[in-house]
């Protein structure tokens, strides 16, 4: 990432206002000429992490490509809330086909652009259901062929569009409409779910990254990096869903940040299957900071807290911190994170 030395006087915060930076250092979102690719007026819920993530990501794509981009969208919240006919919030060429085929459709768009001699960046995008579940075959095929597509997954950890059902990305103990808060093990079982970015890495594709709506600059930087690379690229963005998670819409960024700062959602980059960079945790927080503001985890914190389950989740976060070297005591990410 680009850096600039500056002096500032805020204390007790890690945020720095753009006004302290030179123009070229400012984030895309801070510029008046940003594309507003996902324009205002759409029907996303208040505090929607996916809408925020999509605007950040696609605006960064539009800046990096000078507007020469086409988006292919899977079925899901992002598609539904952005395009009630005859309206559309998309300020770029945009195609929606089906729930499970966005990576293949994007690969087809890319092939057509190549054969027609047009230099255009093609992005595919979808939620976790469309990406890690129903679209996974098409995603793996697109990776394996190294098709020239940047695929972005907005992960809110369940099927939100259909009413919050469990997906292959739902974390342990989370209550959804199909993993209810009843029985011996309320919520999603431990041991389920899949790690999509690691599986993407296992394909050996040129670029894989994870990002969070809590870290705008990091997200924009990764998208910009990805746009500069040819072949199959994958960015997995963690996006809180106030509706599905039972969280205050005003806390979307705070909750996303707690996921990163606890180690539950590690931010990293990988090239050709090898981890090349992990973003350090600046101020470590316990996983309870992430879990407690969300009603889907409320059953862990009743009159008799489920200490065993909380400890298991903390162990997952600690393992991530260890594996990716997320704390300063680990100077470099371990070199042998091979898969």
């Amino acid at each position, binding site marked *: 990432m680009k850096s600039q030395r500056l002096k500032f006087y805020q204390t007790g915060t890690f945020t720095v206002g753009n006004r302290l930076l030179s123009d070229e250092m400012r984030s895309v979102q801070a510029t008046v000429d940003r594309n507003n690719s996902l324009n205002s007026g759409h029907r996303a819920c208040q505090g929607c992490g996916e809408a925020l993530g999509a605007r950040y990501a696609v605006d960064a794509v539009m800046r990096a490509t000078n507007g020469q981009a086409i988006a292919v969208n899977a079925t899901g919240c992002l598609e539904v809330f952005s395009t009630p006919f005859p309206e559309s919030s998309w300020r*770029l060429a945009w195609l*929606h086909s089906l729930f499970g*085929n966005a990576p293949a*459709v994007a690969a087809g768009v890319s092939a057509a652009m190549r054969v027609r001699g047009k230099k255009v960046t093609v992005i595919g995008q979808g939620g976790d259901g469309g990406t890690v579940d129903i679209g996974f075959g*098409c995603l793996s095929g697109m990776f394996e062929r190294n098709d020239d597509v940047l695929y972005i997954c907005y992960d809110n950890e369940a099927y939100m569009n259909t009413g919050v059902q469990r997906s292959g990305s739902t974390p342990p103990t989370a209550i959804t409409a199909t993993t209810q808060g009843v029985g011996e093990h309320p919520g999603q079982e431990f041991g389920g779910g899949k790690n999509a970015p690691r599986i993407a890495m296992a394909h050996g594709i040129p670029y894989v990254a994870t990002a969070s709506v809590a870290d705008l600059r990091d997200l924009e930087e990764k998208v910009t990096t990805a746009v500069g690379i040819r072949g199959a690229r994958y960015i997995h963005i963690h996006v809180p869903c106030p509706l599905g998670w039972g969280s205050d819409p005003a806390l979307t960024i705070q909750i996303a940040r707690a996921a990163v700062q606890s180690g539950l959602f590690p931010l990293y980059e990988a090239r050709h299957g090898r981890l090349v960079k992990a973003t350090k945790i600046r101020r470590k927080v316990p996983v309870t900071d992430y879990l407690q503001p969300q009603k889907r985890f409320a059953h862990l914190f009743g009159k008799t807290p489920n200490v065993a389950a909380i400890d298991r989740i903390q162990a997952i976060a600690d393992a991530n911190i260890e594996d990716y070297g997320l704390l300063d005591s680990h100077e470099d990410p371990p070199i042998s994170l091979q898969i």
Partner: protein
Amino acid sequence: MSTFMPGRKQVEGSHAVAEAIALSRPQVISCYPITPQTHIVEGLSAMVKSGALSPCEFMNVESEFAALSALIGASAAGARTYTATSSQGLLFMAEAVYNASGLGLPIVMTIGNRAIGAPINIWNDHSDSMALRDSGWIQLHAESNQEALDLHIQAFKLAEQLSCPVMVCMDGFILTHAYEEVDMPSQEQVDAFLPPFVPQQVLDPSDPITIGAMVGPDAYMEVRYLLHHKHLQAVEVIENLRKEFKRHFGRDSGGLVSSYRADDAETLVLAMGSINGTIREAVDEMRDEGHRIGSVKLCSYRPFPLEALREALKGAKRVIILEKNLATGLGGILASNTRMALRGLNTPVNTIIAGLGGRPIPKKSVVRAFRQIETGEVEEPHFLDMNWPAIHEAINNRGLVKRRESEAQRVLRSVSGVEVAKPVR
């Protein structure tokens, strides 16, 4: 561009189609193997890899669902697109089949017609394309390899003129794997007939549009009607293309329906695809015996040419539909549709269900069935060459057989007379 030798030559049906696709200057081809269409995409793969089709992209994808999905993207991005599939493959891409027509994308796809499992079966019938008959795609059935070749060249023009996808159906193995003489047109001839693709809608960063938006109850019916309207238009366009094709290439191919010895016929037989050759021979044989019989070939199944078919059949006292599909619990699908074309005429319609799962349809059996229908001796629908003793045995044994085996296995044992080996303990 093309390095093919025009003129008459003896080639496999699949290779004839591959050359016809090549001559049509495709830009993106996707491929997923399934018997019996695979030789077509193999042929095209070789041409793309050698550079003979440049500029053209060939995509080896991971499923039929991806094969059609990739073409949806490529077509929406302005490329002329092609793929081929059969049977399970067509069903596996079913969701995308409806999507392509709903989006109005002029994709051309060959169906190497094959039965659907279970029981798994790789041989020819029309169950696959019939299953997707109301998907909004145009469906044309080829009788011969020459017609298959010609229909593909017509299909691109038809699809692009209407912005509607087209399936060209050809009987698996019977056509796809048969070596027949065909007249291969030259690149100049095809170029003169088929202009470059000009998309009616296209993904373009300099003029961005949204394609595939959600449409609610306020407009969905109208959008579906517009697809219906394309099919109504297609009836006319298909006949015009038949005439135009004849002007360019000098032969009659395609169209809606074609009649044979039908003028004074009391009995008319209607069928689709390669079986029409056998039917015409049966007609000749029965004509020699004094029967007033003729036949009608249906090339365009979707759009279903109600008027043209009624016109072709209305003079007959009796219509026989010979078809390679079965709507379970109902009978023949083509017969049902034909009854709609004949409504109000009181013409008796008999159905012959034949050739399911590749069961041979010999002329002898066809002639026998026609004679029986003329004398009113058959059930409706009539199942050609059905092994009824095996059926009765299987039905009688239902619920009685303690051994754990499937009904298909029991029937196979019954028809083969071979006792299945007992498991060794």
